[in-house]
Each structure stands twice: as structure tokens, then as C-alpha cells.
């Protein structure tokens, strides 16, 4: 029982990452009809805004400590972050420690801008081009983005820890009446789950309750008619692209403490997020979120020893197997709309 609860927690956590990425992807799919292979790269860029802020906060001046030596036997250069020298040890280091949460604020304008620039610079020329061309251009873009990150940050993962206050884990089990240590769960993962719940509801509320959102939803359903009403739907779609990029970016920022970011983490998520979006059904936002959580939970269950011992290797293929089963039984995924990306 406790094992199952644990895996549900894990699944929800994994699912929230999938759901966040898929949500952004489906906004772009559904609103703009663009197959965006650069979406994983945007997620990666988000994670690297956290790394960048961490680097910025750690900008240091160098003093020579003659009493100590470096690995070559020369006097040791000691680096002191400016922030520490300005605000003193405890406050300075405290700020550096909070780099990841601070990057949330830092990343939103950046990601909005990146999304905006991408849409205006490249994507907008591809609305009326075949999906194949969209794949080629966005894939090329993804390669370029990740190579640039690689050139600046290297290929190795870069540790980007959560603030000290959120490290460690919480004993859920005791809370639910299990013995100690039965169900422990890291604080940061719980925060991630809550955070994505907030972002997802935020996006839904935005689309449901604002005029902007209503126009966009109408545009998703029937772009031409909305255009005929004299509404500049293109401009709103540009903004939607920015929002989708920001959602993916935030997913990346918050993911940084869970797994150290590296330049190709986007590609690792890319295929998976496409599977999630399609399983959810093209053009359906709730579908994408539902599919994200569903696949996350099922993936977690598949990695349980009890299941692996019956079906060896099931955790290798579970996501794809589920995708095949769902697509064969439900032609348009879980909640897909008719006629979207079917030809």
C-alpha cells in the first residue's frame, strides 16, 4: 500500500513536468497549428535561466590568498561573490541560495521575449507551410539553441540546488498513519507539483475568464471566422507563443534542482512531450494535462519491482505501449478535437 502511494506521488510529480511541457506544446499546436520541435529546447533554456542567474549572483572578484596554494602549487586565488561582499556573509549567501526561486521572476520576461522573438523571427513564416517544413525549421532551431548553450555552459550537467530550506524530505507516511520512513518525499518535488498545479490552473483561468483568452479559444476553434470579425488574431497568437514558451521555461526553471540541467535535456523530453500531447488529443488543453499525469503515474507503476518481475523491461516501453493502446482505442487520443492535424 505504501509502495503504491509512493508511486502515485512519483507519478504525479513526473506527470506535472510532462503536463507543463505538453501544455505549452499544445498551446502552440492547438492555437498556431505549428509542430514545434524546439519546444524541448525552450524547456532547456528555462532551466538554464536558473543556471545563469546562479552564475550572475556568483559573480566574484578575486583575491590572492598567499597562505594557501592551488593544484599547481601557486598561491590560491580566492573568489568572493560581489553580493556577499555587499550584503555580508549571511544575507549574500542567502540570496545566492535562493537563486532558483528568484529565477522564476527572472525567467518569465526572458522566456516571453524568447517566445516572442522566435515567433516573429521564424515561426510566423511557417503557418501556411506543410508540417514537414515546420518540423525541419524548428528542429534546426532546437539544434542551434542547444549548441549555443553547449558553447557557453559545456555538455556536463550543472548542479543547481534548491534553497537549503527545501532540501531534504518530508515523512508523508507518519502523517497518514504509516510507520516512520514508509513514505518519504522530497520537499522540492512537492513544491514542483504545487507549482505546476498553480501554473496549469493559471493558464486555464486566463483562457477561460479573460477576453483575450476567449478570443484565443475562439481562434483555436475557427481561425478564419475570428479573423473576419476584424480581430487581429495573429497578434494574440504571437502572445500565446510567448506564454507557451514561458510555461515551458518555468517548467525548466523549477526542474533544475530535481535534475542538474544539461544542454540536451530538451531532446530527452521532446519525444515524450509529443507523445503526451498526442495521447491527450490534438488541440485539447485538458487532454494534454490529463495525459501528462496519466503517463507519469503509469510510468511510475511500471517501474515497481513487483510489476517488473512479471513483465521484464516493461518500464522501458510503458509510455509507448500506453500511447499505442490509447490511440488505437480512441482515434483522437483522450480528448482530441476532430480534424486537427489529421491530415
Amino acid at each position, binding site marked *: 500500500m505504501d509502495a503504491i502511494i509512493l508511486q502515485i506521488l512519483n507519478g504525479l510529480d513526473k506527470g506535472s513536468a510532462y503536463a507543463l511541457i505538453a501544455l505549452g506544446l499544445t498551446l502552440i499546436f492547438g492555437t498556431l497549428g505549428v509542430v514545434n520541435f524546439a519546444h524541448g529546447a525552450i524547456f532547456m533554456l528555462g532551466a538554464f535561466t536558473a543556471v545563469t542567474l546562479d552564475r550572475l549572483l556568483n559573480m566574484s572578484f578575486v583575491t590572492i590568498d598567499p597562505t594557501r596554494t592551488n593544484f599547481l602549487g601557486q598561491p590560491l586565488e580566492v573568489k568572493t561573490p560581489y553580493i556577499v561582499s555587499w550584503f555580508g556573509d549571511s544575507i549574500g549567501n542567502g540570496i545566492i541560495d535562493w537563486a532558483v526561486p528568484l529565477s522564476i521572476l527572472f525567467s518569465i520576461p526572458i522566456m516571453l521575449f524568447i517566445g516572442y522573438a522566435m515567433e516573429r523571427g521564424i515561426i510566423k513564416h511557417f503557418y501556411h507551410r506543410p508540417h514537414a517544413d515546420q518540423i525541419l525549421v524548428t528542429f534546426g532551431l532546437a539544434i542551434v539553441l542547444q549548441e549555443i548553450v553547449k558553447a557557453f555552459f559545456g555538455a556536463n550537467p550543472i548542479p543547481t540546488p534548491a534553497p537549503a530550506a527545501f532540501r*531534504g524530505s518530508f515523512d508523508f507516511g507518519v502523517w497518514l498513519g504509516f510507520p516512520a520512513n514508509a513514505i518519504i518525499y522530497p520537499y522540492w518535488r512537492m513544491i514542483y507539483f504545487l507549482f505546476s498545479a498553480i501554473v496549469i490552473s493559471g493558464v486555464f483561468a486566463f483562457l477561460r475568464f479573460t477576453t483575450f483568452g476567449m478570443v484565443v479559444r475562439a481562434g483555436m476553434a475557427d481561425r478564419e471566422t475570428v479573423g473576419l470579425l476584424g480581430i487581429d488574431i495573429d497578434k494574440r497568437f504571437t502572445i500565446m507563443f510567448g506564454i507557451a514558451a514561458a510555461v515551458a521555461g518555468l517548467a525548466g526553471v523549477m526542474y533544475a534542482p530535481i535534475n542538474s540541467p*544539461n544542454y540536451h535535456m530538451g531532446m530527452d523530453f521532446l519525444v515524450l512531450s509529443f507523445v503526451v500531447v498526442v495521447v491527450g488529443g490534438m488541440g485539447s488543453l485538458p487532454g494534454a494535462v490529463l495525459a501528462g499525469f496519466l503517463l507519469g503515474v503509469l*510510468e511510475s507503476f511500471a517501474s515497481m519491482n513487483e510489476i517488473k518481475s512479471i513483465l521484464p523491461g516493461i518500464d522501458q516501453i510503458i509510455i509507448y505501449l500506453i500511447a499505442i493502446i490509447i490511440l488505437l482505442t480512441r482515434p483522437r487520443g483522450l480528448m482530441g478535437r476532430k480534424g486537427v492535424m489529421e491530415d
Partner: protein
Amino acid sequence: MSKLILTRRGLLKTGAVAGAGLAMPTIFASGAAAYTNEPKGGTVTLGFNVPQSGPYADEGADELRAYKLAVEHLNGEGDGGMLNTFSSKALKGNGILGKKVTYVTGDTQTKSDAARASAKSMIEKDGAVMITGGSSSGVAIAVQGLCQDAGVIFMAGLTHSNDTTGKDKKANGFRHFFNAYMSAAALAPVLSNAYGKDRKFYMLTADYTWGWTQAASMKAFLEGVGWTMVKDVRTPLATTDFSSYIAPVMNSGADVLILNHYGGNMVNSLTNAVNFGLRDKMVNGKQFEIVVPLYSRLMAKGAGENVKGILGSTNWHWSLQDEGTKAFVKSFGTKYGFPPSQAAHTVYCQTLLYADACERAGTFNPCGVAEALEGFEFDGLGNGKTLYRADDHQCFKDVLVVRGKEKPTSEFDLLEVVEKTPVEKVRYEPDNPFFKGGSLGKCNPGA
């Protein structure tokens, strides 16, 4: 004005009868070269085949730095590095056999297909007489097989699987790096001293060949010191989030977690495990511990603070205090501004060892070089006394057990050497069950 060169690589067996009429080129006499890519001019070309894209690109970059350094030293430039401490004095700093050393580079992408394509282009296009490098066992074994067929020497880079010099060993291939068996042999006694004789361990194992050989070796040795295994769980290579594998560990009754992962897998699984708070827990009345059998400083850097206090093994570390290490670190550090990684060290050694063998053999002929390397004993390359065993082309040397440092003084100072397990403790016979099944075959000079 023009000249005709004919090469006849490969041996024809099946076709002797069937293909006599068809096999046009074969009716000409064998070519002028005595072996593949015999260097004719004043230079000799080496092929450095390292990952330059993909997750191991940084490791590849560090290997490439070391190769460039080695080439400098061989050509008599720079401070000479470990040439000065190397026990064999055959190398004079005038290239190899009087020929200036040049090199070509390629990208393995950490895929066996791409690595072989890259190595082939070095052999077919650039005339490389030796291929070296790589950062994973799959690639090493694939390229080693290719070099065997093509008739050039392969000096393996970072490859830790038992199979490289076990069931997939080849007469033209040589490995300086240690292997999974040696890691386990060195770690087991240290672990039992540090954590007690009565421990229960749980393993997470990357689900591919290297992971399995690592897991099998660890299991054998840990059970040898009286520990009991609770479970060995295989994790897909593509896993990025290990939470669902780590979560059940707490309740399994195990009090040690062994992570048979490397590279990105290792960084993520270790980070996840530490985030789950495993190391803060007491199980069975003992402190819960995590072990990473194969450490790499570059990868440890990716895991950040999470490596603190965690035991593992490594082929070499820059903080060693022997003369060879000091010379190498000085030379590398002066040129690049940071200390070399174990990958850099092993490929530097491999280049020197190859060059030295050529000098001693007096030829670049792979068979001559192989003979010179087989059974070669040397010292002064940072690992103490070392033997290139003739039976399987594996180097036998001391193994370092290291621990993540609690108080690093710099961003490079992440590991501290806990123990230097002497070579006798990690030696095994060539017919050891972990290594049996392949044979070296005969050396192939190609041509």
C-alpha cells in the same frame, strides 16, 4: 605520372572457389604497404576519436586536450610531461621513430555507428595508423572490433566494462583504464571496513551491458565480504528522473544503495537519491549510505554537493603525489588552467605507451607494436608499477578508492583518495568467469 597502388585487405575464404573469376582486383599482387597505412613520409598520423557531441562531450573535450599535450610532448615541445618520469626511456622527443606526430580528430557522438564511421574515415581517408579515445564501453568495443578488421592498433580511452578486455577482447586492442571487476574488488573491503560487515545493499543498475557487468562484479565481491543483496533493479538508459526507482529503497530493508550508473544517469540518480533524504536516515540501526562504484570527477561536478562523503573508485586522480602525476598535472594545468580528469590521464598514457611501443619495436606495424606492449611493465605514469598483461591486453595497476570531499577548496577539488588498493588485490586470472568467452585472435596488420 600516375601510379597504381593496390591494397588487398581482408582475407577471402569462402570465395576461393566461387569467386575466382569474379574477383578481379584480387588477381593482382598484394600492395606495396606491409601493413595498413604504413607511414611513408616524415610524419605519422594518429586518430583521436572522442565524443564531441552528446552527453559525454566535456569528457571528450578533456581527452582531446590531453591528446594534444601528448603530441606536443612526443614532438619535443612543451615541458615533456610524463615523458620525464616514464620508466621506459625509448622516446626521445623527436616524434615516433623519427617521424613527427600529427593527428586527426573525430566525433563518436557516443554511438557505435557514428564512432565506427569516424574511425573508418580516419583510417581510409587520413591514413591514421592508430585509433584511440572514447568515453563508453559500447563505443570502445565497436571501434576495437573495427580496428582489428582494418589492421590498426586501438588504444581504448575511458571504458570500464569487463567485456572490453573480456569476451570482446581483440589482439589489436589495448586498455589502460581499469574495469568493473577491479572497482568491485577494490571497493568491497573498503566498504566493509567503513560501513561494517553486516550490511544489506540495494542496487540500481543501468540496463545495458556495462551496467550488468558492474552489478555482477559488485554483487560477487560484496557478498564475498558478507553483505547481502536485497535487490538489483535495472533502470532504462533513457531514464532522467529516478524517483520511482529510489522511492522503494527506503522500505526494502536495505541500508546501502549502490548506483551502477555512469554519466548523466549517475548525476541524476545520485541527485535524486540525496534529495529523497536517503543519507539522513537510519535503517536497521545504521546510517544509510550510498555508493557510486565508478566515479568521474567531471560527472561528480554535475552532481554538486550531493557527492559529499560518497565512496567510489576511480582510475586516477590529480591529487596523487607521485612524480608522474605531479609532472602531468603541472604540464596540463599550466597549459589549460585546470587539472586533468581521469579520462585525460588515461588517454595521455595510452598515447605515450603506444609511441613507446613503436620505438621499442622499431616499427609501426600493429603486430610489432602489439608484441612490444604485451607483457610490458612500466612505472612513472601516475599509477605506480603497471603491467600490460599479454593474455588480455588489460593494464594491471593499483586502484583508487575515493570519497566525495566534505570541504572542497576549489571547484576541482571534489574527491579525496581514501585508499590505494594494491594491484595484487584486484588481479584476476584471464579465465575468470567474469571475463571468459572471447579470445584475442591473431594480430592483424591489415594490408
